[in-house]
């Protein structure tokens, strides 16, 4: 009966129900988009680190993220190969570079050089061409999302990177960059040439450890042998990159802040409508109390109202949030909004939490209810 009474109380005043649902819907959409953008940002920031076939990264000291790497000496690679537990050590070059469009103008890009044969960090999600095509003269692979930014139409197009000629031999789909600076994938040698690095210079040495060996122990062993470089496990490097782009730049804080704002606004709206609904039904709650109901019974009615509002608002909010996510995906914008089952579940939890917190004011009002008021009407 508590659920029935809660439902009838809710639908009794349709205008108030609409206001409540709009409040929840607004909050859910805002939180979903902000957290979706946050997750999307995390995916974009960590995508290269996650995709790289290695467990430990050797890099220059103070390296804050994947894109902005200072060169290190390739000797670190041989030190790594001589370390117990290491099965492979693959050099990778990465650096910001200047892409000159065929029709004039230029755009900043991130050049990533790694040899496919060594399997360190090669482009993924290839929709046109093949990774082996990078063996061809001047070959690069770019993401189709950024074709317009690069000023090229697709495979076969030529351009210049740092003054050197490149030719697009393949396209990937969905390798987006958090900084909106697109990636250009090529071979190690070509990257070194385009960036005019010395023959011993690399950005990273990506170390693969033997099965059953803890990356942390290899990291410690390598760090001891390479005091001039920094050695991080994949998880550490991922976390460092995320911290840099999301926290140090304030981008993530803004996204989380937006989500919190949505939560606060939603809570306030729901609290207000739930409180006014409770106030309107105060005499009924007093009657319940006079009939001998426990306070818990009345709380159940109010919490059921909150939960029903949460469920209805969640369905509506998620429908709109999913429509936004799909629209953004269809529009192939450089930004990425991610919706995962975990995020959907989290959003439901947040909605329930929001509505439960919103019920506090209403519950506190009912707590002070005097059942004797039923005689004063």
């Amino acid at each position: 009966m508590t659920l029935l009474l809660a439902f009838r109380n809710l639908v009794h005043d349709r205008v108030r129900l609409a206001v409540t649902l709009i409040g929840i819907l607004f909050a859910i959409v805002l939180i979903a988009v902000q957290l979706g953008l946050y997750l999307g940002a995390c995916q974009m920031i960590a995508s290269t680190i996650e995709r790289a076939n290695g467990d430990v990264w050797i890099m220059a000291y103070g390296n804050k993220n994947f894109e902005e790497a200072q060169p290190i000496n390739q000797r670190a690679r041989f030190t790594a190969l001589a370390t117990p537990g290491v099965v492979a050590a693959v050099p990778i070059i990465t650096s910001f570079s200047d892409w000159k469009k065929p029709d004039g103008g230029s755009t900043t890009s991130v050049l990533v050089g790694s040899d496919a044969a060594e399997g360190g960090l090669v482009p993924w999600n290839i929709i046109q061409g093949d990774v082996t095509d990078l063996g061809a003269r001047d070959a690069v692979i770019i993401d189709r999302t950024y074709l317009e930014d690069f000023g090229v139409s697709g495979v076969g197009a030529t351009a210049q990177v740092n003054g050197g000629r490149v030719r697009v031999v393949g396209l990937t789909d969905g390798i987006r960059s958090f900084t909106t600076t697109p990636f250009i994938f090529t071979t190690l040698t070509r990257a070194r040439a385009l960036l005019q690095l010395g023959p011993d210079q690399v950005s990273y040495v990506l170390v693969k450890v033997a099965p059953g060996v803890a990356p942390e122990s290899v990291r410690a062993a390598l760090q001891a042998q390479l005091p001039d470089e920094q050695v991080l496990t994949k998880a550490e490097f991922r976390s460092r990159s995320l911290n840099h782009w999301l926290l140090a730049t304030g981008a993530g804080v803004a996204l989380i802040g937006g989500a919190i704002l949505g939560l606060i606004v939603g809570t306030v709206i729901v609290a207000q409508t739930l409180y006014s609904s409770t106030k309107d039904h105060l005499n009924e709650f007093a009657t319940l109390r006079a009939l001998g109901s426990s306070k818990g019974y009345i709380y159940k009615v109010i919490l059921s109202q909150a939960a029903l509002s949460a469920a209805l608002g969640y369905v509506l909010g998620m429908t709109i949030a999913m429509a936004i996510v799909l629209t953004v995906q269809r529009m192939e914008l450089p930004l990425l909004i991610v919706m995962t089952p975990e995020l959907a579940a989290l959003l439901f939890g947040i909605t329930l939490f929001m509505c439960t917190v919103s019920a506090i004011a209403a519950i506190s009002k009912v707590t002070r209810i005097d059942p004797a008021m039923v005689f004063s009407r």
Partner: protein
Amino acid sequence: MTHAQVLVADTIVKDLGQGAGTVRALKGVSLELKAGELTLLMGPSGSGKTTLLSILGCIMAPTDGTLTLAGRSTAGLSAEELANLRREHVGFIFQSYNLFPTLTAEENVRLALDVRGDRGPDANMRALKALEQVGLGHRLKSYPSNMSGGEQQRVAVARAIAGRPSVILADEPTAALDSENGKAVMEKLREIAAGAQHAVLAVTHDPRTMAYADRILKIEDGRIVGETGPPDGVDTIHKIAQVKKRKSDAKS
């Protein structure tokens, strides 16, 4: 016929307000309610009727004096414990019916049972029987807004009796009704009291209700100032009810 005592109030005192604004609303009220009796509590406005009803219904605790309901003293009980006692032993009928406008007649009665923890088919059956008992078996799915005042008050009566309480307390049950509906409600209360399972106390200003009473208590200025039997001619109504009950008992 011997009636069992279900409620005993002994020297009830109630102070309302605080500090210098304290008013002694009840000044030592003692009374007993017995199953099978319909008692009227009559008195002018401000005489303490509603305060007394609140205390007898375990909604308020007395400042002094003792209340024993269904053999249990209310002394020292917390608000929640009083609510438990009220739930088990008291049925209320309010002047303004106090039905839930968003629930049907049947749901209103079922809600009172649900509050007591009575759920399921048995509770549904009891709700149905209670509504049939007040002649509303055909209005189960009607909402209060679609019912007349008399019908609404009969739903309230059904709600009060569905839980088979020891005491039914009615606050001005006929005040909002025309004479025809008022009469119908009082007849129901008379019938319920005659069932000997409940004691019925009705607070009223309405002299028309006196004809249905077994006893009439008069309260003035926080004190019971008199107790009378029903006025002349009441025996007829009383006897009719008793005859009806005997017939009904014989049938069952």
